[in-house]
């Protein structure tokens, strides 16, 4: 029976539906202490002193640490895209000399229960000489830590990329079209806040950290280095994870502090982040300003594109290094030819929460900027937005298409894609011409309705590699062990489907182990829409190896040759009928010689590039500035769909997050750098009332030639172009091309647009 391509229900749901999930807060250990972080109340200032005596005296407080107590710990290093020039901007686990954002950890309290810990944290007094906060990433850079690093400014790096003859392009232009746009500061907000439990086992001299996510192997190595531990003394164990979205699972100060405390205090230490902390302390994202200038010909074809943009990195450079800015620069050209391009991406520090990646990092933003530009080209030239997109698409015949620049250390080479074809399918699904006529008729009747379309290229399947081991036991049950992680996206089901398909076994017999550093020596985690591409391919390779071993072994036992045998429904059988042998029996026979196993390693030098199109239909009430999304469609080519239901779930959930960033979610600060959206009362997440039904047009027209399954990632398709599509739809509803230049599109900003003021 075929397993790939079927919308099977998730095999990982059983414990979740029965209330038997093991999330971070579910982890407990005898005698555990509770950690509470004392956070900076001001955005920027020199630390004069931290007074802990009164808090220490509180009954139940075991220890309170400031940076002086962990002075030997180095700052948290880069997981990816680190540069030498960035090193001085890394964050220490507790504030050193300066605080640089409201919410920065300045001390930690360890106490016998979380209430006492919070009481004590309230009593810690931070004596800080507050200084003027830098809050505008486009303003001239200022000193990072004035008297500590003289001359070190708040612009750690400027990334430059270029190809083609940009001067010739601009000299030949029929018209120059320019836009300046801004994407607000928002981030992934998983339902489960961060959490950690560190347990020291004195017998084994091993610390185990529970509550981890995303990149357990990398974090094992990073914490091991920071704490100066010997190999094997730290293990990370992933339980259930209530959402990741790029932000959860990166290495943060709290993870290191929990491990350090478990080791030093010789008691288990637990930390559960509360929601207010989460909104102040976990990575923020987005918050970019783009200035684009395009040289175009009469048809709206972009001859050359000059781009300058600013990433508000917040207070420090965290684990992602230059990732967001790097991806923005590389992915800005999107699905269009653009023969000449030059870009300058400024990474600027401010006194806000440090930023990192959030689902479609650098693409949600750059797609918004690019698609706003395309819409502006169309309106400036009096062309239809769809026509301009058609004129600029990279043709299917041009694949693979080498962009001539790099991102994340690998060349940007679009592996496959039929962009024009997908656009026609989307327009067809919308009945585009008819729909536009209907909308025009409604506008004639006084309604403010409009349709917007936005196109994008995603990237997925970042290497370098992943390893999978599969073992069959004597009962014929199959265990897949992988170093990737699950943040709730359906990893177990998808990997099991690939294994079941490859060796033809019932999926019920398969279990998947992930995110356990003591079960497999390497693993590269769950990010960059990489798991199905990387671990999926490794599962296929491992399954094939296991199948070959099973057939070879069975052939000996059945006194035949492997080519006369096949695997069917968990049994080795003769192709011409007759003899058969259950897989478990084959495994039993191999017990002495290492068991029935298969190992697969998939190595990828290049990413795969899925692509898609969003279409949004909105209605604006100009009297209230309310926006209603009447229809939302995502067209997406995933190469090959292992489980269409799970892909659609990914797309729908991501679209909801995209709507949040486009209309609702924004971290706002006052002029002193005090965050004004630090709870769910003010940081507005979309709810089922604000999110319409999302239609998904899932295609498999351009499989990836880069992996044995032909798959591309699906995690970020639903969010990528939401801001762009909604902005275009609102423009159309108001019949004012180009008026939306900033996300989120709040009622107050819409009001300013309608009243002709600058938002």
């Amino acid at each position, binding site marked *: 029976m075929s397993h790939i391509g079927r919308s099977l229900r998730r095999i990982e749901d059983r414990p979740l539906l029965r209330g038997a999930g093991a999330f971070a807060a579910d982890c407990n250990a005898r005698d555990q202490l509770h950690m509470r972080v004392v956070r900076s109340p001001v955005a920027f200032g020199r630390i004069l002193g931290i007074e802990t005596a009164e808090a220490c005296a509180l009954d139940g407080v075991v220890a309170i640490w400031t940076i002086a107590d962990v002075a030997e710990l180095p700052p948290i290093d880069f997981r990816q895209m680190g540069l030498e020039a960035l090193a001085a901007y890394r964050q220490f686990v507790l504030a050193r000399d300066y605080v640089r954002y409201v919410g920065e950890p300045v001390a930690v309290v360890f106490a016998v229960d979380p209430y006492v810990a919070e009481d004590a944290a*309230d009593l810690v007094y931070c004596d800080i000489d507050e200084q003027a906060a830098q809050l505008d990433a486009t303003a001239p850079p200022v000193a990072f830590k004035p008297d500590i690093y003289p001359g070190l400014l708040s612009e750690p790096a400027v990334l430059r990329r270029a190809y083609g003859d940009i001067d010739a392009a601009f000299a030949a232009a029929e018209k120059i079209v320019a836009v300046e746009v801004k994407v607000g500061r928002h981030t992934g907000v998983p339902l489960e806040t961060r959490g950690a439990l560190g347990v020291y086992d004195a017998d084994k001299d091993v610390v185990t950290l529970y509550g981890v996510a995303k990149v357990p192997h990398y974090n094992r190595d990073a914490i091991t280095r920071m704490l100066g531990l010997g190999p094997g003394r730290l293990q990370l164990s992933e339980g259930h994870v209530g959402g990741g979205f790029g932000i959860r699972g990166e290495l943060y100060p709290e993870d290191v502090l929990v491990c350090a405390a478990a080791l030093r205090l010789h008691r288990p230490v637990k930390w559960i982040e509360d*929601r*207010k902390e989460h909104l102040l302390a976990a990575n923020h994202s987005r918050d970019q300003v783009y200035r684009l200038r395009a040289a175009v010909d009469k048809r709206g074809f972009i001859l050359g594109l000059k781009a300058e943009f600013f990433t508000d990195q917040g207070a420090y450079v965290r684990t992602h290094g230059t990732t967001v800015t790097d991806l923005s620069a590389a992915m800005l050209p999107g699905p269009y030819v653009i023969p000449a391009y030059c870009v300058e991406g400024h990474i600027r520090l401010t006194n806000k929460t440090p930023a990192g990646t959030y689902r479609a990092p650098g693409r949600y933003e750059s797609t918004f900027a690019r698609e706003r530009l395309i819409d502006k080209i169309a309106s400036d030239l009096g062309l239809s937005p769809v026509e301009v997109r058609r004129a600029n698409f990279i043709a299917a015949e041009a694949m693979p298409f080498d962009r001539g620049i790099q991102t994340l250390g690998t060349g940007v080479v679009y592996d496959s894609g039929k962009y024009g074809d997908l656009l026609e399918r989307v327009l067809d699904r919308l009945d585009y011409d008819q729909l536009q006529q209907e909308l025009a008729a409604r506008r004639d009747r006084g309604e403010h309705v409009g349709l917007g379309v936005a196109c994008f290229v995603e990237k997925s399947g970042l290497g370098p590699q992943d390893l999978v081991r599969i073992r069959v036991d004597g009962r014929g049950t199959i265990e897949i062990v992988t170093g990737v992680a699950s943040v709730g996206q359906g990893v177990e089901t998808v990997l099991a489907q690939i294994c079941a398909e490859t060796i033809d076994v019932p999926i019920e017999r398969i279990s998947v182990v992930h995110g356990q550093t003591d079960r497999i020596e390497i693993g590269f985690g769950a990010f960059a829409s990489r798991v199905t591409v990387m671990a999926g391919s490794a599962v296929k390779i491992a399954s094939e190896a296991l199948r070959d071993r099973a057939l070879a072994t069975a052939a000996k036992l059945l006194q035949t040759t492997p080519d006369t045998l096949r695997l069917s429904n968990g049994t080795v059988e003769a192709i011409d009928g007759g003899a058969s042998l259950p897989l478990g029996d084959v495994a039993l026979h191999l017990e002495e010689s290492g068991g029935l196993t298969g190992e697969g390693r998939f190595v990828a030098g290049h990413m795969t590039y899925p692509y898609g199109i969003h279409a949004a239909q909105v209605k604006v009430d100009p009297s*209230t500035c309310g926006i209603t999304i009447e229809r939302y469609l995502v067209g997406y080519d995933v190469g090959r769909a292992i489980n269409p239901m799970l892909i659609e779930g990914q797309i729908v959930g991501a679209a909801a997050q995209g709507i949040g960033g486009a209309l609702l979610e*924004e971290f706002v600060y006052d002029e002193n750098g005090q965050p004004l*959206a630090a709870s769910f009362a003010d940081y507005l997440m979309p709810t089922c009332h*604000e999110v319409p039904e999302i239609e998904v047009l899932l295609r498999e027209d351009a499989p990836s030639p880069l992996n044995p399954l032909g798959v591309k990632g699906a995690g970020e398709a639903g969010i990528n172009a939401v801001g762009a599509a909604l902005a275009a739809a609102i423009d159309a509803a108001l019949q004012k091309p180009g008026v939306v230049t900033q996300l989120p599109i709040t*009622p*107050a900003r819409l009001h300013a647009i309608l009243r002709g003021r600058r938002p």
Partner: protein
Amino acid sequence: MKPSAFDYFRPASLSEALALLAKYKDDCKILAGGQSLVPAMNFRLARPAILIDINDLGELDYIFADDNGLHIGALTRHAAFHRRVVDGPLGALLSKVARHIAHYPIRQRGTFAGSLAHADPASEWCLVATALNAAIVAKSIRGDRRISVGDFFNGTFATDLAADELLAEIHLPAMGPGWRTGFFEFSRRAGDFALGMALAALRIEDGIVREARLGVGGVADRAIRLESLEDGLVGHAASPELIDSIAREAWALVTPVGDIHASPEYRRDLIATAVRRALTEAAA
């Protein structure tokens, strides 16, 4: 997000509750639905030393109508108004308004009286009480006190209740069959506090407005009754032109403040829209 330590009392009778209030005064808070108080405690924005939980006081769990109007006891939940608690326009209005209050689970716990005692300027019930000229009955060991709604709200989260007083009942004046009502609210998401809202009630006879009630919320430190505009409606037909002019006057009367969700300019325009829509609904 763990509250600081507090003592907890769960009195079995109103007199016991009042005695506790008299004893602890400003050190204590009444716990009814807890939908605002408990989050405030978790954020440590509120740190009452003592909570007096009145949920066992069945004598405060009532709602009834008589010739004078509607009497709402302190334990009446928002959800009680999902159905029409009284025949006629008042019951219909309250039922409509209730659906704008937060979300279904919150409406099962939160109380009408708690909303008034909390005095959030964007609370729907505060607008209802203000626009419809409610009276508030406060009880203490010193006796009962009847407070006109005009004297009750002192600003954001501030009321005329003394430290030893319990808000025991709200009295809404009766609304005869000649009344028609309108309510309009705009918020950024379903269930959020209003960015702006308006409530209108008109008694129309032979096409002419004989009595009018008009209030707005979410624009100032408390809900506002626009009595001068009520006067402008009485004696006239509620025509679109008159409604438009009343909405413009409302725009001129209010001076909203800005916050991260709404600029003052936007809020002022929104209030005009809310007044127009509420009046249009009432006049329809």
